[in-house]
């Protein structure tokens, strides 16, 4: 077991030693960045500014939800609308690694601008162990470049502070509960956000489709779990595929997109089994997606692959 109190005390000491001036924290509202924000704000107080970037790639209602959480935490924060900048960096990009690198770089450029205007020389990130492990290094293969590690440009102007580098998600949640951070039970959501759930080019139109599909999957599985119909998986979402297939809607030919239902059970994100979703619930998700999104989606499939050999997200 992780010695949570010991970890918190040690990390407060090392943050105090590391952050002598002002710092900004990249804050998505997920448990990793919110715990990092709570720790650093305990250590350096008002010298910390949290930056939430609305990349245009976030889930339905997410920006408002995170704004509320940051307000509740009582730390300095700023919401930056950078959607246009992100979509223009992603124009024509289809390779998953190129996407992740483009997004990582955009984030850093936004943070550099914000750091300059706040006078910060340190960037705090909620990087956890799987982020740097999967990003690869001298000896490790790059499985995927996590935006906060593999996406960092070489000419970055700030020094990095990453208090959670040696923890996994289950351990971060323990620290979150200890510190009373509200997002402790939020499901993981990748830094590159809906861009890596949208295979092929990331356009505002494609993101709108996968955003709605993700919302339906989250909503139906959330309701099913709340009423005892299934256990809440570790992570559950939709992926939009670039291929099209033939369908029939009200006696008319359809030629639409495919949505994947992905749900996994895991503890640390390093191994995972696909989550068994009862067929009645799969049915509900499938019908709701294809009925309410009929002009975009006419097929829904269910991903039954573990990690390894797959990863949890598709890109």
């Amino acid at each position, binding site marked *: 077991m992780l010695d949570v109190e010991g970890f918190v005390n040690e990390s407060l000491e090392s943050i105090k030693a590391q952050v002598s001036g002002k710092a900004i924290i990249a804050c998505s509202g997920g448990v990793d960045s919110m715990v990092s924000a709570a720790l650093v704000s305990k250590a350096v107080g008002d010298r910390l500014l949290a930056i939430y970037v609305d990349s245009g790639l976030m889930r339905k209602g997410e920006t408002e939800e995170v704004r509320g959480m940051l307000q509740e935490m009582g730390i300095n924060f700023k919401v930056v609308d950078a959607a246009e900048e992100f979509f223009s960096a992603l124009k024509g990009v289809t390779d998953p690694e190129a996407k992740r690198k483009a997004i990582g770089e955009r984030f850093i450029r936004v943070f550099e601008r914000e750091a300059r205007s706040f006078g910060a020389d340190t960037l705090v990130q909620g990087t956890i162990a799987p982020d740097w492990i*999967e990003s690869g290094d001298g*000896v490790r*293969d790059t499985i995927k470049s996590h935006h906060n590690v593999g996406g960092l440009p070489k000419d970055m102007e700030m020094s990095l502070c990453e208090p959670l580098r*040696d923890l996994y998600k289950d351990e971060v949640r323990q620290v979150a509960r200890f510190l009373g951070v509200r997002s402790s039970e939020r499901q993981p959501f990748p830094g590159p956000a809906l861009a890596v759930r949208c295979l092929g080019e990331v356009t505002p139109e494609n993101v709108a489709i996968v955003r709605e599909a993700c919302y339906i999957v989250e909503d139906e599985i959330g309701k099913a779990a709340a009423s005892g119909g299934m256990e809440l998986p570790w992570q559950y979402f939709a992926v939009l595929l670039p291929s099209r297939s033939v369908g029939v809607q009200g006696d008319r030919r359809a030629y639409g997109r495919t949505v994947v239902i992905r749900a996994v059970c895991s503890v640390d994100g390093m191994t995972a*089994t696909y989550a068994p979703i009862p067929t009645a619930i799969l049915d509900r998700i499938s019908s709701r997606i294809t009925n309410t999104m009929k002009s975009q989606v006419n097929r829904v499939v269910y991903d039954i692959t573990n*990690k*390894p050999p797959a990863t949890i997200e598709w890109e």
Partner: protein
Amino acid sequence: MKVYIVDNGGQWTHREWRVLRYLGVDTRIVKNTTPFDEISDVDGLVLSGGSPNVASDADAMGNNGEYLDRADFPVFGICAGMQFLCEHFGGTLGESAVPEFGHVDLRISDHGDIFKGIPDGICVWASHNDEVKEVPEGFVVTASSSSCPVEAVRSADRPIYGVQFHPEVEHTEFGPQMFRNFLKIIDDWQK
């Protein structure tokens, strides 16, 4: 007790560190290019897995050979770590006819050391493209699966152990028990 982990570039090297830390061991991850003399005061060593093709990419395995030759303490090789130690002592490696990713049904044939107190049939998780084809002289097979005949080995005359699967990941049953057994082996070795 001090047990270091030699990093051969595995996705789960840091998980080995986590399991040992949870067991209260003084542990560190070290590069596989670390000179033996810098780590010779450990009580035991874990050789991690990694992406190298052990048979053809010997350079990527750094000083693992020297550690095995000079260790006067128990050594536990995992995945590529086990493949390397088998080849080092004269065994042969090759591509798996059927690779294993994820769930594997393990059949344990020898409960003397690493598998002490663990049932005959358990579920473990693996992730490998290659496997041990011939076990070196002086080594015995301690577990197998339907697609991989050499899932675990031990030396008959030195405290050297290997597993092809990954006892450090969450989905492997009795994984922490296998590490506890390794620590017990170290303890007994020192008596």
